[in-house]
C-alpha cells in the first residue's frame, strides 16, 4: 500500500477515525477481503452441504477408477482399461499439441499476411485485407464446423476410394495417411543430438557476441548454427547405421493400418484455429511495423548498415516491443479456443473431462480440473511472454 503524503504533522496521540485516510483505506480493504472470503466460504460450504444432502458423491477418488471409454487420438499409450486420470492426461496432451502447433503456424501465417497487407503491390495488399476482415469477423465455432463438415467430410472420398496423389500417401474422409520412418532407436539419438546442437548454438552465440564486443571481430554464426542443429543429428543418423525403413500405410479391412495419420478432426481444428488467429496476428504485426518511424531506417542507412542488418538490428527490435504484448494475448486465445474441439469431435481436455464428469456424475471436480489445467497453461504462456517482453524491452543506460 502506498503511503499517502500528508502536509500536516501527525497528531500527538493515535486516534482511530474514519476521516483518517490511512485508517479508512485499511478498514475498507479489510472489509472487502473479508466479504469476498465470506462469500467464497459460504458458496463452498453450501455446495458441500447440498451435495451431502442429495447423496451426490464428491472427491477425486474417481481418478483411479477404470475409464472404460476409448479415445481416438492419444500421444501416450491409452486403452479403455486405463484410469480416468490417464484419460485426462491424454486430453491435456492433445490440447497442448494443437495449441503449440497452432501458435507456431498462426505466427508464421499471420506475419506473412501482415507484411502482405503493407505490400506496395495493390493486389497482394487487397487480398490480405479481405482475408483479415473475413476471418476475424466470423465466429470461430462456425469456422470449425465449416472446415470439418463442409470442407473435409463432404469433399473427401471414403477409405476404399481414397485419393493416392503420391506413392504411400492417401487422402480420404479418414484423414491423410503418410509413410513414416519405422521405429528405430536411432531417432531418439537424433533428437538428443538436435537438442545438444541447440544448446551449443546458444552458448556459441554468447561467446561470439562477447568476442565481437571485445575485439570487433565477427563470427559466421549462421553457418555454425546450421552445422550444429542440422549436422549433429545427421551424424547421429549415420552413426546409427542410417536406417531408411519406412512404415507404409496400407488399406486393411475398414481402415488404413500403419504409417502416420492426420485425422479430419485434428486437421479441421488446426486449420480453423490457425486461419482465424492469423488474421489477428497479421494486424498486430502490421501495427508493430508501422510503429517504427521511417526516420529510423534512414538513420541506420546513413550509418552505413546494410538492409538486412537494418531490419535485424534497428527495425525488428523496436517493432517487437509493440508486437509482443498483444501477441501473448493471441497465444492465450489459441490455447483457450482449442476447447471448441468438442464441437468437431477432437478429443481435447474439455471433451474428455466432459465425458468423465458425465460418466462419474462429479461435475464440480471435472470442471475444477478443466479450470486448473487451462489456468496453469495460460499463466505459463503469459509468464514466458512477459519474461521475453522484458528481455527485448528498451534497455536504458
Amino acid at each position, binding site marked *: 500500500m502506498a503511503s499517502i503524503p500528508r502536509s500536516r504533522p501527525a497528531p500527538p496521540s493515535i486516534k482511530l477515525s474514519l476521516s483518517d485516510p490511512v485508517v479508512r483505506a485499511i478498514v475498507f480493504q479489510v472489509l472487502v477481503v473479508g466479504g469476498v472470503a465470506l462469500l467464497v466460504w459460504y458458496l463452498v460450504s453450501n455446495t458441500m452441504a447440498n451435495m451431502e444432502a442429495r447423496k451426490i458423491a464428491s472427491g477425486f477418488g474417481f481418478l483411479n477408477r477404470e475409464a472404460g471409454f476409448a479415445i481416438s487420438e492419444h500421444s501416450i499409450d491409452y486403452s*479403455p482399461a486405463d484410469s480416468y486420470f490417464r484419460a485426462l492426461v491424454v486430453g491435456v496432451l492433445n490440447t497442448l499439441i494443437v495449441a503449440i502447433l497452432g501458435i507456431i503456424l498462426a505466427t508464421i501465417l499471420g506475419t506473412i499476411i501482415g507484411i502482405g497487407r503493407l505490400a506496395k503491390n495493390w493486389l497482394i495488399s487487397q487480398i490480405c485485407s479481405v482475408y483479415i476482415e473475413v476471418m476475424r469477423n466470423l465466429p470461430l465455432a462456425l469456422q470449425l464446423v465449416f472446415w470439418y463438415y463442409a470442407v473435409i467430410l463432404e469433399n473427401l472420398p471414403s477409405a476404399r476410394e481414397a485419393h493416392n496423389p503420391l506413392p504411400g500417401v492417401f487422402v480420404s474422409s479418414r484423414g491423410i495417411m503418410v509413410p513414416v520412418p519405422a521405429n528405430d532407436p536411432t531417432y531418439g539419438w537424433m533428437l538428443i543430438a538436435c537438442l545438444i546442437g541447440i544448446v551449443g548454438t546458444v552458448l556459441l552465440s554468447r561467446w561470439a557476441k562477447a568476442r565481437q564486443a571485445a575485439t570487433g571481430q565477427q563470427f559466421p554464426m549462421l553457418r555454425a548454427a546450421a552445422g550444429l542443429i542440422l549436422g549433429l543429428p545427421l551424424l547421429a543418423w549415420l552413426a546409427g547405421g542410417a536406417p531408411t525403413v519406412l512404415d507404409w500405410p496400407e488399406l486393411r479391412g475398414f481402415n488404413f493400418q500403419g504409417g502416420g495419420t492426420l485425422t479430419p478432426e485434428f486437421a479441421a481444428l488446426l486449420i480453423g484455429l490457425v486461419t482465424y488467429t492469423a488474421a489477428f496476428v497479421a494486424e498486430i504485426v502490421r501495427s508493430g511495423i508501422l510503429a517504427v518511424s521511417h526516420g529510423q531506417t534512414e538513420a541506420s542507412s546513413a550509418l552505413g548498415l546494410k538492409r538486412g542488418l537494418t531490419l535485424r538490428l534497428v527495425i525488428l527490435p523496436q517493432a517487437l516491443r509493440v508486437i509482443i504484448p498483444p501477441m501473448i494475448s493471441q497465444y492465450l486465445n489459441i490455447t483457450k479456443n482449442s476447447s471448441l474441439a468438442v464441437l468437431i469431435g477432437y478429443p481435447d481436455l474439455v471433451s474428455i473431462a466432459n465425458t468423465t464428469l458425465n460418466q462419474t456424475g462429479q461435475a464440480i471436480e471435472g470442471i475444477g480440473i478443466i479450470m486448473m489445467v487451462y489456468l496453469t497453461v495460460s499463466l505459463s504462456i503469459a509468464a514466458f511472454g512477459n519474461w521475453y517482453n522484458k528481455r527485448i524491452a528498451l534497455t536504458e543506460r
Partner: protein
Amino acid sequence: MKHLGKIAATAAIALGALAGTANAQQSTLDAVKAKGFVQCGVNTGLAGFSAPDSQGVWKGLDVDMCRGVAAAVFGDANKVRYTGLTAQQRFTALQSGEVDILARNTTWTLARDTSLGLDFVAVNFYDGQGFMVKRTLNVKSAKELNGATVCVQPGTTTELNLADYFRANRMQFRPVVIEKLEEVVAAYLAGRCDAYTTDASGLASTRSAQGANANQHIILPEIISKEPLGPAVRHGDNKWADIVRWTFNVMVEAEEMGLTSGNIDSKMNDPNPGVQRLVGKTGDMGKMLGLENNWSYNIIKQVGNYGESYDRNVKPIGLERGVNELWSKGGIMYAPPVR
C-alpha cells in the same frame, strides 16, 4: 459511515437470499402442487420417445410418463412443462431441482442409481445397443467390425458398452465422439465412420428419418448390451418416487386388465375387483400415495394404458413390441399388483 451501513445491508440481504435457496429441501409433491405443474426433463428430440410435433406439442413414450404423473397429481395430464436436455445436461438438471422427473430414455445403472444421487423408479422401455452400417459396406455382423471407425455420442452408456464389446471380442476400433445427435449422424452419413452405434430404438429412429434412403442402411443383428430405459427422480424423496413408480405400474396393469382410455368409462361398474381398484372405486389406493382416489382413473382416461402409449408413439418409427410386450404375451413388461 453511511456507505458502510449500505454495503453491510446489501451484503446481508444477498447472503440472506442465498441462504434462503440453500436449505429449501421441501417435498417434491408439495412443491409441484404449489407451482401447479410437473417440470419434466426430456430428450431434445427423439422421435417416438420425446419430440415436439408440428404444432409444438410434445409427444412420445417418455412424454406420456410425465403426462401420467400430472394426471395422477392434478387430474389433468396437460399440467406438464418440458425441459429439453442433452445427454450431458440431464443428471445435473435433476440433481439441482431444475426438473422434477427425468424421463429421457436414460439407462438404469448402479453407478447412476447411487453416486449420482438419483433413484430410478421403473423401466418403461427395454432397449439394447446395436450398430448401423451402410449397406455398401457388406457387413452382416458386428463381429466383422474389427478395425472399424465407429461414431458414438459421449457421456452415454453406449460409449462404455462399445469399448467393452470390442475388448471382450479382442477387436480394435477407432471412436469418433461428437456430442450433438444431428452432428454425429451427419459424420456417419458423410462416411467419417463405418458404423454408428446407439440404442436400437435410436438407430430405428435415425434410420426412419432418412426417408427414401433408409434402406441404404442396415441395423446389424447383434444387441450388445442391456439398456433398461426409465424415469428417474431425486434420491431421498420416497413419496414422490412412489407416485412416479405407481403411475407407470397403473399403465401396465391397465393393459393387462384390458382397460383403455376408450373403454374405462363403460367399465366403471365392472364386477372384477382388480378393475374396481384401478378405477378408484375401492381400496383407497390414491389416499395411500397422498393423492385423490380417482388418480388411476385419470391416468388411464387421459393418457391411456402402456400398450396404447406404445402403439401411438413407438410403433410409427418402426419398432415392434418385442421384449416390451406384456409378460403374459411373451414379453418381460411386468408390473407389481396395484392393491
